[in-house]
């Protein structure tokens, strides 16, 4: 246990050290060159702003996070179901997959205004935008996973007269799990990006505004330290989402998948 913690510390020490050095250099450059805070605030000022504006920024973060998580949940659900439909029917896959690709390759910034016009509810329109960005990796990965079940195992299921539901439930879905989880991890980050981009397009409106609108607003008003603080919160949120999803993925794949096994030494 002790060695595991010290191992973890050893692995973390290097990147943390680099981070501290970078922050010190940043602060040094700002202080020595007397750079005004509306051009580039030092890290100390950013931290102070984060502390002072914290409560209001966190409220905005909660707005963005709600959209992100709802979009991710919708992407997991609809993406998963769509992948299963694709895996069950080659015809449906051939019919629908190109449209999923079109939805994916069209820049969200370009269609967000339309969606915001069409969908009256602000929350819902932002959710739809974030969902469009997030759902494709799940569909693509899960479809691939469902189709990559071991051939011989599939033959064995056939030999024992398994129903197609049994094949799906006991063979194809477990085979697809690592692929699906990779899709979810990618989508977690994309959902946040989608939510932020959609908020940018929607602009500052309504009583509740997300972090993206706060960034826009801070930019207009040259409140650069606040802009940095909001940006920092966004990055931390993205990292947290990724870390949580990675942890879930490792937990689910423990025991059996190569990616989740500890290194042998």
């Amino acid at each position: 246990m002790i060695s595991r913690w010290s191992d973890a510390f050893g692995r973390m020490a290097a990147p943390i050290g680099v981070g501290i050095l970078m922050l010190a250099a940043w602060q040094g450059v700002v202080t020595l060159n007397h750079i005004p805070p509306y051009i580039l605030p030092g890290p100390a000022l950013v931290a102070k702003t984060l502390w002072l504006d914290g409560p209001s920024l966190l409220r905005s973060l909660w707005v963005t996070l709600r959209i992100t998580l709802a979009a991710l949940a919708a992407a997991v659900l609809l993406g998963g179901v769509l992948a299963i439909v694709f895996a069950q029917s080659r015809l449906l896959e051939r019919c629908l997959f190109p449209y999923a690709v079109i939805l994916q390759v069209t820049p969200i910034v370009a269609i967000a205004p339309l969606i915001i016009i069409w969908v009256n509810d602000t929350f819902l329109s932002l959710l739809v935008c974030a969902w469009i960005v997030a759902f494709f990796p799940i569909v693509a990965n899960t479809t691939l996973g469902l189709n990559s079940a071991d051939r011989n195992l599939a033959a064995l299921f056939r030999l024992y007269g398994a129903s197609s539901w049994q094949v799906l439930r006991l063979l194809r879905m477990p085979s697809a799990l690592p692929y699906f989880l990779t899709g979810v991890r990618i989508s977690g980050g994309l959902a946040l990006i989608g939510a932020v981009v959609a908020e940018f397009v929607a602009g500052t409106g309504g009583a509740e505004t997300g972090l993206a609108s706060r960034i826009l607003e801070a930019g207009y008003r040259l409140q650069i330290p606040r802009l940095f603080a909001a940006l920092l919160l966004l990055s931390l949120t993205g990292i947290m989402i990724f870390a949580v999803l990675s942890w879930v993925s490792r937990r689910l794949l423990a025991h059996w998948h190569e990616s989740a096994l500890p290194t042998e030494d």
Partner: protein
Amino acid sequence: MACQIAAEQRTGALLSLERVGKVFRNGTVALREIDLAVAPGAFVSLLGPSGCGKSTLLRIVAGLTPPSSGRVAWDGEGIAGSIGFVFQEPTLMPWATVWDNVYLPLRLAGKPRSAVRENVEGMIAAVGLSGFERVYPRELSGGMRMRVSIARALVTEPRLLLLDEPFAALDEITRFRLNEDLLQLWRDRRCTILFVTHSVFESVFLSNRIVIMTPRPGRIAEEVAIDLPYPRDEALRTSQAYAEQCRDVSLRLARSSR
């Protein structure tokens, strides 16, 4: 009475292949005119070089590949549900424990866990893996994984067990152990075995009948009866009789492949 016995012998084969042929979609003739009868309780090896269609023949018997011509006939009522299959690779579900892997055929047949617990655990014990029920395949050695695969194939108490070069990827020591254990299982359970191999030594050690096949297209060259007494064990491997049988079969195999 005598008449009845004669009729029994004619129809007594558990499985008979009649003029079975297989042409793949790309035009390759994999099998031509295969006639083969397997008696109940027999241990038959299909011996031949790679590409002689032995594995294809096994898949046809299992019903996994349809033959292009000829037919596969079974003794009596549908045996189709009573086949066990062991692949070249252990082909286990990596996400499931040993217990769940062995339970799979029964699960697919709709049998609840509680009803077959003794059955599954008895089978795991029979292949020498008691205590490994909760272990995942990743944590097992190659030989142990193959044991799980054999346990899975036997858990439904099939009348016919098909094995497709199951021990080819194992080291020699493990292979010898598994050969002996497989013979033990065969004798205890009184099933019929059709065993595909490219090893003369393995086929002579295991079977009471060897079917020698030749490649391109896959045909049966000849059949050899092996009269060495069972139980066969380590002592047999080093015996003169075994060496002579191996030599005889090797010569026949070489002659047929020429």
